[in-house]
């Protein structure tokens, strides 16, 4: 009932705002920062170029690797070079808490309901896409697809090496799923007593067969070359690898996936706050969202965007499997990884090094 109540007005207001200030903003520019690579390319085609066309505001793009230190340095020295940053949910929560990002009441500009499925707005940011990590394998080489993470752990049924992310976060969740925990309970169990120990114990079983990958590219390289039989991988990378190499890699979400949003947030203290809000709200609209999802093969954050996508495009997207995911949002997730993250990561590094 309260759903779509104000959204036409909001949408109209946003577009009017953009159209009206467009010509006046001919000389303005903002800097938008992302993780680079294919994400930056998709961002350019889906958000940056249309935004500049609609508003006349120039967008300078930049790259970083989620190093909060770089954000902190700029804010603390009041030497703000960036305006909009694309951060992980954890970095948005941390950055917001520590006063590095601008708190904004996004419900003034956008309909909160459309973003509920991916975890909703942050105090400082708006999700702009939804990344899922799932079980990837070569569709041409494996005819009997794995149905669970326990299958991933089963080296007798599926001989060969496995790929796992060289990070505690996401890998421990996957380990628990292999140990029989339902995806929606994973964070509760992990943050509960003995959860971390249980996950490490499970990882130890498969450790001799693991190739730890450090980058999205590497995860695809090892699967394409046949170095590993199966790997944990991010869905957008799988689609991109298929496109570039004309292969038939598949990603399964039914066994359980770990998903979270990338969030656009504004650097605290930037003089271009209003322009930044304009950009972010533009990127959150259904059509740009669909364009981004199409370009990068990650899911849109705005549910209304699915209307604009074809079935073929939705093939590597977890639409329909959202309940099979361990979501990277919510207090249980944030508190666990913010509190225990460093300690668990240190334990993981030691574990992987032995």
């Amino acid at each position: 009932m309260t759903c779509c109540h104000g959204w036409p007005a909001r949408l109209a207001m946003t577009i009017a705002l953009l159209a009206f200030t467009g010509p006046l903003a001919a000389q303005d520019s903002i800097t938008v920062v992302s993780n680079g690579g294919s994400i930056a390319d998709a961002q350019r085609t889906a958000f940056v170029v249309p935004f500049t066309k609609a508003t006349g505001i120039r967008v300078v793009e930049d790259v970083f690797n989620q190093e909060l230190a770089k954000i902190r340095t700029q804010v603390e020295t009041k030497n703000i070079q960036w305006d909009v940053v694309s951060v992980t949910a954890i970095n948005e929560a941390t950055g917001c808490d520590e006063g590095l990002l601008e708190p904004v009441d996004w419900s003034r500009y956008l309909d909160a309901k459309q973003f509920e499925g991916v975890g909703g707005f942050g105090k400082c940011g708006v999700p702009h896409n939804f990344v899922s990590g799932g079980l990837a394998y070569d569709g041409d080489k494996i005819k009997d697809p794995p149905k669970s993470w326990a299958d991933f752990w089963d080296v007798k049924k599926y001989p060969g090496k496995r790929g796992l992310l060289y990070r505690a976060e996401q890998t421990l969740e996957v380990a628990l799923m292999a140990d029989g925990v339902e995806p929606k309970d994973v964070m509760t169990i992990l943050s509960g007593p003995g959860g971390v120990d249980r996950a490490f114990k499970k990882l130890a079983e498969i450790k001799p067969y693991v190739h730890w990958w450090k980058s999205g590219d590497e995860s695809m390289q090892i699967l394409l070359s046949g170095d590993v039989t199966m790997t944990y991988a991010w869905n957008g990378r799988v689609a991109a690898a298929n496109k570039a190499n004309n292969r038939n890699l598949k990603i399964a979400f039914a066994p359980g996936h770990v998903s979270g949003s990338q969030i656009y947030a504004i650097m605290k203290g930037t003089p271009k706050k209003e322009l930044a809000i304009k950009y972010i709200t533009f990127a959150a609209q259904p059509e740009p969202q669909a364009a981004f999802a199409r370009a990068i093969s990650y899911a849109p954050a705005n549910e209304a965007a699915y209307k604009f996508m074809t079935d073929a495009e939705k093939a590597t997207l977890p639409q329909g499997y959202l309940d099979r995911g361990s979501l990277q949002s919510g207090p249980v997730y944030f508190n666990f990884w913010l509190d225990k993250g460093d300690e668990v990561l240190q334990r993981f590094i030691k574990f992987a090094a032995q």
Partner: protein
Amino acid sequence: MSRSTTGTSIAALVRKAELRRERRLLAIAAPAITFVLVFFVLPIGLFLFRSVDNPEVHGSLPRTLTALHQWDRTTLPDEQAFAALVADLRALRGKPELAMLARRLNYDVSGFRSVIIRSGRLAEQGLPPYRKWLIANEPAWGDVTYWGAIRNEASPLTDFYLLAAFDLRRLSNGSIAPASNENALFRDLFARTFWISFTVTVLCLIVGFPVAAVIAHARPKVANLLLILVLLPFWSSLLVRATAWIVLLQDEGLINQALIALGLIARPIRLVFNRIGLTIAMTHVLLPFMILPLYSVLRGIPQGQMRAAASLGAKPVIAFLRVYLPQALPGIVAGSTLVFVISLGYYVAPALVGGPRDQMIGYFVAYFTNSTVNWGMASALGTLLLVIVALIYAALARTIGLERLRAQ
């Protein structure tokens, strides 16, 4: 020393002129000296200081610390401490210092972060008696461990980071204990860094000594050419060489192809992103640092000596061990020290060519700086590395000094 009739000696005039000259020369060199002091020595000093710097607790919880001054560290603190804590938390409301305090205390006790953040939000509504109210709303405050951590970090200087670098920590009663076994990775890390550096040094020595000897005793034109060949890879950046090795050693690379073509192996073996690849790449990069010092020392050993020893009836091996090697020793020591110390501090090579089992100290200094933004930990590890390097060079200087004395 004659004195002229005016009373000033010639010696004094000469001395004055000398002083003036020295001052002028110093002035010429002064810009560089100031530059090094301001932009090198000072930052490193600050860096070393950061490994003991502890501003968060003592800056954000002043009242609490005063109240905890007489605390016995074994039973829960009294109402006064709780009241002080609430007052401090209220003063921190909305400030970034609250989150930084939360993060800092989280290093001491895992989970402290959310306790602080939650308590920060709660503090507004607190009413006396604070002790009862706070424990009821945030049970962690009923645990001595948390208060103990605050008390441990009371001083503006701390040994927390340095202890952690040795896999030690302080318990809530203040005593030192080993860190939990699963997280204790720094001693292993240092051991690993030393071992890798040692392996690379030995390899460089075995491979580099014959090369240095051949160059040292070759005809000048040949020696010149060979030296350029040694310097050639030395002149190109480490990055390019590491890249070249990744390409050579990868599964589809030339080495594996050659081995398969020769029939020595059936399927490619993993030669890169592990210890093997790292050792090969580092040896390749550091070899010139072994060859050059060795060469300059070996050049001074007269060829005739070995022949003389042979003519006196000594077998070649004995001649080598008794005549050649002792004179080559300074070069061996210099080259080995150089290679060892440089590889200790390596960061790029392990990051590119090594695997998860091969990360060295330098990598963690960078990791704590960028990824987790734990500058205290980064500084502690860096300080230890610096101290080790300094000790080794000091030992080298001492040995060279002793050598000189003995030569006299």
